[in-house]
């Protein structure tokens, strides 16, 4: 759990933290690889939502360098397979995500990230 698809959609939301609050940085993580079913239509539909730079950086940090630095114009099966693996098959099980701006630490335990804010961090 905490797949890179999720990592690509979560930003720090502490009070006043509105710039440079994405992507969150992984810290002290343990990863697991688990197979997921390949659905090219889902991936094609999701590509416009992806922050590409954040995805490739996170993938590199987790040791996967298969994605190009820019999304290609031609979405062939080979590319979609790689994207599928990066988005859906790498699971961060333990560790934390840290906001690059305010330094808030969002801990991940048993694959579930705790994104709750403390009392002084809500508006």
């Amino acid at each position, binding site marked *: 759990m905490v797949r890179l698809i999720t990592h690509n959609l979560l*930003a720090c939301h502490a009070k006043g933290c509105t710039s440079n609050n994405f992507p969150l940085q992984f810290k002290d993580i343990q990863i697991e690889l688990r197979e997921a079913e390949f659905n090219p239509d889902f991936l094609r539909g999701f590509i416009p939502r992806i922050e590409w730079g954040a995805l490739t950086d996170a993938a590199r940090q987790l040791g996967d360098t298969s994605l190009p630095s820019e999304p290609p114009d031609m979405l062939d099966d080979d590319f979609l397979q790689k994207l599928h693996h990066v988005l859906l098959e790498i699971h961060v099980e333990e560790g934390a995500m840290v906001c690059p701006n305010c330094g808030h630490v969002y801990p991940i335990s048993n694959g579930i990230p705790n994104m709750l804010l403390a009392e002084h961090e809500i508006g």
Partner: protein
Amino acid sequence: MGLLGKIDMKNPEITMICFEEYIDKRGTTRDKHEGDGDFKEVFFGRLIEEGSARMLLKTFDVKKRVYYGNTSMEAEISLLMANQTLAAPGKLIYDPFVGTGSMAYTTAHFGAMVFGSDIDGRQMRGKDRQPGIIRAASQYGVAPRIIDLCTFDITRNPWRCGDLFDAIITDPPYGVRAGAKRLGRKPRLGKTPQNVTVRESPHPVRDNDQPYIPPTKPYELSSLASDLVLLARYMLKPRGRLVFFLPTVTDEYEELDIQAMLCEGMEVVANSLQNFGSWGRRLITIRKSTSQHYPLPTFESAASKSESDTHVPAHRDFREKYFQGFKKLDTD
């Protein structure tokens, strides 16, 4: 009929069925031992095919599920809800009050990818190392379709952008068995806020292995419901659907209760009642009818708006009404 095959009652090759129809006398005045109504007609036929969904009631039976809680939704209703979302392969669906995941399994069964979040992580996790929702999803063979589970409050959510989901499916807490909560602190009586803040530093000292639990305050049902519609307008793709249950008081319900909850760009597709007598719950399906982008709701405007609004929906303060047994308060 010339049926010459071997007789086998356990694994018959063909199944013949006989139905008798009687006048329905439920709800009418009748004698104590008067049974069914008058016989009308009889139907006889051969079973050609069973429906594809009927057997799913057994598959998703909560009693046979490896992980469930006291607020888990029964199989039949979870399946009906999944149907209302038009769950299908390639779709992305979100449950913002996922709890023990009842609707995640059925939507994933129909092929959709599911995200879940909840303000209380304990419901999603259970007591084992592997989260309970993942264990139950594995039982149904849909664990890879549960994309992720996150702990957060929808009124303070970390979603980077909107227009993400094909559907939002949820059974919001009504405040009867599970109380709705949001981050914040309950207003205290008697003490002035200053007296409280002096004694509590914003960074309370605690052991490293003790996770910090932020304070929560109750979330009143009618503001939760209108916030949910606003959140759905932000988070759904155009033509995406919001499917949720709303409990209401039977005698006080008006069509206007639902209409007053809507906002620009959202329209009701279906509204069906499950009647429990003095109260009931309505399965509401709302569609995003616009392709316009809307900002993230503030989760404050709805509450203040409903204060000044003249229309009071029947689901306002549902918790209080439920525990008072839905008795009308005497005004004189």
